[in-house]
């Protein structure tokens, strides 16, 4: 999509430093520019969002009515598994890395990411990883069908797709870890010299913490899938009961990764929302420091609650009580965040452009997902909810109306900065209302299905679930169609439209709004102090940044 920007914009560009490499290979395959790599990540994520979405459509189509209509149960299982893997590792995570690539250097006054060549590598691993993963769909025996959680012994019974799955996960892990190291190096070393940690926009803060989570848990997943691989092909018995192993061990290792992983997918979303709400409420973010601490607290808690995914597996009473209370504790820092967003809007002069609408929907709908999360944290009642559609409803509320809504909000918010054009506000609003109504029709009835006992990951169901499933499927098709509109809006905006100003939004604060729109190929090339008054938290914490500066001088 950004190819067209080059053709359109090169003629208008008067920036001396704006020499983009010529030719497709040099510009995209060999790029080390954080903006180009950010674009690649975002385009890749959008493509994967559509692939994963198509799989979701097949799932909802089969579940439209009870009985088996369209696909074989084995293929249905492949769809549920691949939908999750593609959406988590292909859509949500790369989209956040893309946003980090585009925005973090511009937000902290850095000329580029700290390790640009590694940045190129960490992106270009991804298409290969997903080619490998998606290729299993066309192999004899089909794609992995044992669920994205890859529990043994089921995952080992699925033929040779296990090997492809494991190596694809390895590559995604390597890509994520390299991206995380890059983010940490950029934030720690590349900030403008007068920009202290507490001057940083919240998006930068949440990404810094996310990056640490990634480094801590992606290697653990790599270890777990390696054990799967050796159990399958090299006769080890990590999870094989006949050989003295224990399949439950996998669940512990997996969820030690898996729980921090869900925060990896939501913390950057918190950051995006914390950028957008102050802009359209025209007030600084309420409780900036408490937001930083709340993010760190959520990240810490994520490591000590993993077994709440395993209440039904069985554990001593003390274990159940511990994991129950620890999990419920996460509601405290999350509540701080929700409170601060509401506090930011309180008595603000709000306007409701598309990014703000998506952010408001995020606050409301993510909170619904949070509430069902607190319900599931209760060990005794979780036995009823476990592996039902209640769980499906919960994690889609936090991931679709949470993570995906934040990504869409961020895309609308920063698209004028990336492309130099305003998107069509009218179409944006249609996209918002269409999505928000349909997404609730899609996922809200699933709560009731789950409470009534409909298990997840099944292609057929008992007839008493028919009405809610039909409702959910209709919502699903409508939501899917709305995202095609989103792709159209993005495409139109990149192609042309009303010219965006540098500031773009009246109430926007932050260094990214001080550079022209579209952002030139190189920004902040002269490493030096920035105007802190342009930052939302620049002046408030300037004393702290003075201390930082003195520290730097002492070095």
């Amino acid at each position, binding site marked *: 999509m950004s190819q067209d920007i080059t053709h359109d914009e090169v003629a208008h560009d008067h920036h001396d430093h704006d020499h983009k490499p010529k030719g497709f290979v040099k510009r995209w395959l060999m790029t080390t520019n954080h903006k180009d790599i950010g674009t690649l990540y975002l385009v890749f994520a959008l493509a994967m969002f559509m692939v994963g979405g198509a799989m979701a459509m097949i799932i909802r189509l089969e579940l439209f009515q009870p009985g088996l209509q369209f696909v074989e149960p084995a293929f249905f299982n492949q769809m549920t598994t691949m939908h999750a893997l593609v959406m988590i590792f292909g859509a949500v995570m790369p989209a956040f890395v893309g946003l980090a690539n585009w925005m973090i250097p511009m937000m902290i006054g850095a000329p580029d990411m700290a390790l640009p060549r590694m940045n190129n590598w960490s992106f270009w691993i991804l298409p290969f990883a997903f080619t490998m993963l998606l290729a299993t769909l066309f192999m004899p025996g089909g794609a992995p069908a044992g669920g994205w959680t890859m529990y043994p012994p089921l995952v080992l019974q699925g033929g040779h797709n296990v090997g492809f799955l494991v190596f694809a996960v390895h590559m995604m892990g390597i890509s994520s870890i390299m991206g995380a190291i890059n983010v940490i*190096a950029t934030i720690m070393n*590349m900030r403008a010299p007068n920009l202290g940690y507490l001057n940083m926009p919240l998006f930068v803060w949440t990404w810094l913490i996310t990056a640490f989570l990634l480094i801590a848990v992606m290697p*653990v997943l790599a270890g777990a899938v390696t054990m799967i691989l050796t159990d399958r092909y090299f006769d080890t*018995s990590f999870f094989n*009961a006949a*050989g*003295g192993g224990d399949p439950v061990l996998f669940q512990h290792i997996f969820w030690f990764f898996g729980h921090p992983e869900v925060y990896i997918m939501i913390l950057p979303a918190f950051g995006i929302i914390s950028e957008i709400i102050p802009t359209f409420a025209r007030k600084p973010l309420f409780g900036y420091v408490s937001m930083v601490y709340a993010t760190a607290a959520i990240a810490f808690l994520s490591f000590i609650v993993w077994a709440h995914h395993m209440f039904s597996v069985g554990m*001593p009473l003390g274990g159940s009580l511990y994991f129950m209370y620890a999990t419920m504790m996460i509601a405290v820092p999350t509540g701080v965040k929700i409170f601060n967003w509401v506090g930011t809007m309180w008595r603000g002069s709000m306007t409701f452009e598309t990014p703000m609408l998506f952010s408001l929907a995020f606050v409301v709908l993510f909170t619904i997902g949070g509430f069902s999360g607190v319900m599931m944290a209760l060990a005794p009642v979780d036995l009823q909810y476990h592996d039902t559609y209640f769980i499906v409803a919960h994690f889609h509320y936090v991931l679709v109306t949470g993570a995906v809504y934040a990504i869409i909000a961020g895309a609308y918010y920063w698209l004028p900065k990336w492309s130099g054009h305003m998107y069509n506000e009218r179409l944006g609003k249609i996209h918002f209302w269409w999505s928000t109504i349909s997404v609730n029709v899609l996922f809200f009835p699933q709560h009731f299905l789950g409470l009534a006992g409909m298990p997840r990951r099944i292609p057929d169901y008992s007839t008493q679930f028919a009405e809610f499933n039909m409702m959910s499927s209709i919502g699903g098709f409508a939501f899917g169609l709305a995202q095609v509109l989103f792709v159209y809006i993005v495409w139109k905006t990149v192609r042309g439209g009303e010219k965006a100003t540098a500031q773009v939004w009246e109430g926007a604060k932050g260094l990214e709004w001080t550079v022209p729109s579209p952002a030139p190929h190189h920004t902040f090339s002269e*490493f030096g102090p920035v105007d802190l008054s342009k930052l939302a938290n620049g002046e408030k914490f300037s004393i702290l940044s003075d201390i930082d500066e003195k520290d730097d001088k002492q070095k």
Partner: protein
Amino acid sequence: MQQNKQNRQKDNRKVLKLGIAGSLLMVGFGFALVPLYDIICDITGLNGKTGVLATSEVKEQAIDHTVTVQFDGTVNSDLPWSLKPQVFSMEVVPGKLYSTEYIAKNIAQIDVTGQAVPSVAPNEASIYFSKTECFCFTEQLLTSGEEKNMPVTFIVSPDIPKDINVLTLSYTFFNKSRLTAAQQAAAAEAHEKI
């Protein structure tokens, strides 16, 4: 300015090295969870593996509560056998020795060697349950169509918490000939602990 840039490059490389070291450390941590889990399970009985082989020391002491032991047996899908306990449950006094039998039958046309893996639920009861004699200690060969009674002698420790009134002893038989040499070695090692 040039000085600055070199310093930053040095710092970036430092972060890169620390990041890679941290990642490798966490891979190690993932693998360290395997023995760590075994240790935690030995202490807590979390995975339902039964206690170490008990000597037949029977403590004659007054026990004021009994425990119901339920018996369960299944075969892995790779094994063409049937398995069922002779009795489905027993009322036992902790501290006393009891015996029962499982009946296994080979329903295949060929001879098959199987090996049983025991498990106790609830998990926290497993460390109070030990067997003095069990068909699960050795591999079992059944010729085609053969039916065999397999004895197990067990003792429930008098230290078992009062709130555990019912426990289940479950066996799963695996097809030993389907295991590779490496898996058999791992199984043998694991069975020494049972």
